[in-house]
């Protein structure tokens, strides 16, 4: 579900703005670190879980407004370079603010320990993340499918020029899409922190998987991103049972296999 969440945010940004957001992994990491700091500031995990991704969304707003928007006229190459440079800046910024050594962040006490399911002892927090990520994906899907603004965003993915011609402020659309994508990356990072801990390089690890999900689902296809995230996660879990050494390689193997048959991705049209 976390892969689906990351892929959904990246697919939204890629679809609406038509640029691959190389800073998406860094935003994931920033979400985790914001959670850590927020917990220390407010002393409450749940409040921190609300605040941290909002902080990342605000950061996304600022990035789009001050960084990407001025480059729309300059062309895609510049936007691409900008997001790549931004990923480095955010990564080094994490080191400057929080240091190069990682931390652990325990789940809230109510979610510590596990449930004995008979055949397995499963951490309560992981079950919570599964449900939470699922709800977030569903909420985002409903927003995009059932609300007017969601429809505008989907229309922006389909045909930006037509949306603009219909009198909709396309810049505001881009800003909102980037902020929403950043929010999804941030909350994915915040949810992941108690599972994987925090380290400056945690975003790099996730970025590769996010791009695989987007490519596999079809560039800009939101349903495809969700499906691809689930397929990748399941494939990894199944392969790890029988051939642990291949648990990372399987992600790319699945992508390659599907793209050979459907180069446009599972649901892609371009």
């Amino acid at each position, binding site marked *: 579900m976390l892969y689906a969440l990351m892929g959904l945010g990246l697919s939204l940004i890629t679809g609406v703005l038509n640029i691959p957001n190389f800073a998406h992994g860094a935003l994931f990491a920033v979400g985790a670190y914001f959670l850590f700091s927020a917990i220390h500031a407010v002393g409450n995990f749940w409040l921190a879980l609300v605040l941290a991704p909002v902080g990342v969304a605000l950061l996304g707003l600022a990035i789009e407004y001050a960084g990407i928007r001025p480059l729309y006229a300059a062309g895609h190459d510049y936007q691409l370079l900008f997001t790549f440079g931004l990923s480095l800046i955010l990564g080094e910024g994490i080191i400057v603010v929080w240091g190069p050594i990682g931390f652990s962040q325990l789940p809230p006490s109510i979610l510590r320990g596990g449930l004995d399911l008979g055949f397995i002892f499963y951490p309560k*927090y992981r079950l919570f993340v599964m449900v939470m990520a699922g709800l977030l994906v569903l909420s985002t899907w409903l927003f995009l499918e059932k609300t007017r603004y969601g429809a505008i965003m989907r229309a922006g993915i389909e045909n930006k020029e037509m949306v603009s011609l219909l009198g909709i402020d396309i810049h505001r659309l881009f800003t909102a899409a980037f902020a929403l994508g950043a929010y999804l990356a941030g909350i994915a990072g915040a949810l992941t922190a108690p599972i*994987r801990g925090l380290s400056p390089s945690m975003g790099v690890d996730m970025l590769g998987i996010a791009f695989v999900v987007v490519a596999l689902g079809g560039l800009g296809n939101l349903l495809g991103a969700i499906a691809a995230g689930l397929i990748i996660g399941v494939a990894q879990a199944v392969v790890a049972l029988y051939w642990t050494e291949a648990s990372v390689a399987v992600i790319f193997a699945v992508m390659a296999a599907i793209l050979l048959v459907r180069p446009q991705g599972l649901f892609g049209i371009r």
Partner: protein
Amino acid sequence: MSDLNRRDVLKLGAVGAAGAVAGLGFPAVVRAQAKEVVMLGIWPFTGAFSDVGPILDRGMKMALEERGMKILGKPIKYVTRDSATQAGASTRRVEEAVDGEGAKFVIGPWSSGVALAVSEVAKRKKVLHYFSGGTEDISGARCHRYSFQWAASPYTAAKTVVDTFMKANPKAKRWHLLVADYAFGWSVEKYIKEVGKTHGLEFVGADRHPLGEREFSNYVTKAAGNKPDVVAMINFGLDAVTAAREIFNFGLTPKLPLIMTWSSGVEELVQLTPEIRENIWVGSNFYYTADTPVAKEFVKSYQAKFGGPPGYAPSAAYGMTRMMLHGFDKAKSTEVPDVIKALEGIEVNDLVGRMRVDAKTHQTLRPFFFMRCKSKSAMKNPMDFADIIATGDTPLPAEYAACKDIGSF
């Protein structure tokens, strides 16, 4: 020319000319007397392990600064290059430092895989190379006259860990291994299984994970399914930290003991909370409570300068530099072959205790530390992670030695 006659002038002129010819005709001799000794630290300042690069640099600098940046009357020029944890970049940069800056003494890098590539450069360029890491090939199958290994042999590590743990937990016979899938992991796994035979251990599972793995849930559920008495990890850095976290999240620890067989000690343990560290047993090449005069002085200086105790990384850099300096002292020379010959068979009481360099393999024979992590209530301060419960220095038995001929210059 009142007091000087023609003969005196001619004599003076001859002496002056001879001196000038000597200076011009033997430039190497004249330059060598004032020549600095260039030492290279090839450390990961970017890429994987980039968090460790600056602290490795610290350790090496501290050892050199203790000598006032001088050896045998000559100034030491300390240069660094970024290994980037990539063999291509590292080898290129080492060659550039050797050719361009005259570096003759190389310490590093941090990654075992990259170290093997740098070792080949050392052999080709005939420079002295010191490395500390888990690959046994440096003093094993790929040994040669120019490279030395500072870390304990993986056999020494495995023997110390298994023997000490079994002494404390004689009934823990069912072991599940979680192994990093590269040369270092395979070596230590092999020796743990060999030593385990002598204790009647049953290895109920052994999973290999790719380097850089971050999703350990599947490995942990497999481990739990095998119902082991203990889980032993043979991995390092973020892999080990992430896995330890997941093993705790899934409820295996603290009920089951978890062994971190080859750990960097402080650098890994600081990333875990006291709850996660409970019932973790740690093997390491250095721990900051080591009871030697050199370690105590080093830890005191390091803490005064940097605020916290040193882990394995800066200690290894410090230790390797000190060994090299011992080599200069014994050789009374800064020529590479002389220092190498001096290091072969050298015996010193240094950072980790009694240390001896095996002349046949260039492996340092020295203690390996085994610690048990403390519970939160037993910690005297936030950095009081563990107690050293044993050290071991059993060398690799001859039948396993892969270095058959250290070679010539």
